[in-house]
């Protein structure tokens, strides 16, 4: 058989071989079919472990209570008890190492997330005591009068009452 007939065949074989070699080099050894089968679980297995190493920022109120039990007691019997510390005090990260202090959000915009009154009787929102943020002391910060850890009216800051 003459060379010019076989030459394209060799070229084709070489291309296939190159693709197969490139594939074995480029595709990680743990790439394959796993628990959920070919349709749903064809992936690189080590990526699952990568996702597990994402840094946890919100450590939950349990961690706060380890040092700040006094503050936890403050809020315990108030209507704000169910609000996690980190919702207002910011995510823990590795406090008190990093960051040393947390940035507390005392802004009006934080309070009105729940306390801007909306007339939605078919949702629990309608049952929350609320104000119209455009009319209720619009230029003041809520914390000037209200104590977030114990917000009942009789606990309003003294200088406001007198």
């Amino acid at each position, binding site marked *: *058989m*003459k060379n010019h*007939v076989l030459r394209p*065949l060799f070229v*084709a074989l070489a291309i296939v071989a190159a693709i197969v070699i490139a594939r074995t080099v480029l595709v990680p050894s743990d*790439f*394959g*079919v*796993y*628990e*959920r*089968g*070919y*349709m*749903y*679980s*064809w*992936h*690189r297995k080590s*990526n*699952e472990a990568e*996702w*597990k*190493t*994402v*840094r*946890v*920022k*919100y450590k*939950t109120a349990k961690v706060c209570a380890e040092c700040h039990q006094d503050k936890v007691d403050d809020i315990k019997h108030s209507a704000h008890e*169910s*609000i*996690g510390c*980190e*919702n207002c005090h910011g*995510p823990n990260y590795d406090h008190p190492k990093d960051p040393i202090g947390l940035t507390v959000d005392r802004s009006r*915009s934080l309070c*009105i*997330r*729940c306390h*801007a009154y*909306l*007339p*939605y*009787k*078919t*949702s*629990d*929102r*309608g049952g*929350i005591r609320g104000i119209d*943020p455009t009319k209720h002391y619009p230029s003041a910060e809520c914390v000037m009068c209200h104590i977030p850890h114990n917000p009942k009216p009789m606990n309003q800051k003294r200088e406001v009452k007198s």
Partner: protein
Amino acid sequence: MMNRREFCKKALIVVGGMALPLTALEVFNPKRLLAEKDDKGKVRWVFLVDTQKCVGCGFCVKACKIENEVPYDANVTRTWVERYVITKDGKTYIDSPKGARDGFVTPQIDQNHQGMKEVKPEEINKAFFVPKLCNQCENPPCVQVCPVGATYQTADGVVLVDRKWCIGCGYCIMGCPYSVRFFHPVYHVAEKCNFCYHRITQGMKTACVDACPFGARRIGNLKDPDDPVTKIIMTERVNVLKEEYGTKPQVFYLGFSLEVK
């Protein structure tokens, strides 16, 4: 000199060989066979949302964005809260400003180019909030359409994205009927809610569940019959989103209404 008969014979052998798929040359692997059978794992993560309890404060969205490093001011988010206001004359108004990152603080409903719509309290028939997140479907269409195997389902039912493997084609973003996927503005790959996989795999709850002061969001293990979330799903009147798509979503809703899409 090659004659016609010989040429046809050889050509057929070459074509036949090329037509053989590479998988036909694969050695039989019992491990793979086992993997493709129904899994016998002990965990299947599911989510339960109570739309009555949700007040639209948006603490969940804020916590999610910070916890999962989704740029805070970019208008993309892994979870969001929708407001539904249904009037007495049957009209439905829906909005979710910034995904409710800053909560719902005004009765004005954002209607895009039609401007802000204010519905008078006496005209409201029903009004409520619906938190949305990835449904971690049992039959995830986003995974089926991925051409490179960059998105996949883990043994415990969570759908993840391999950021190193994703080519950014966007098929999964188009394929998700719930629109929970988007391009990550920093990594330029597909991004989605993964039930805070780094938290749930070490015994914590998701950031949104921990942030919710009202217990509107809960996460549980469907394979544990004593799990309180499983008990509610099995015994109470729960519903799922877009059941007709056959995706078998695993985020269950209490207090569902016909208008929720």
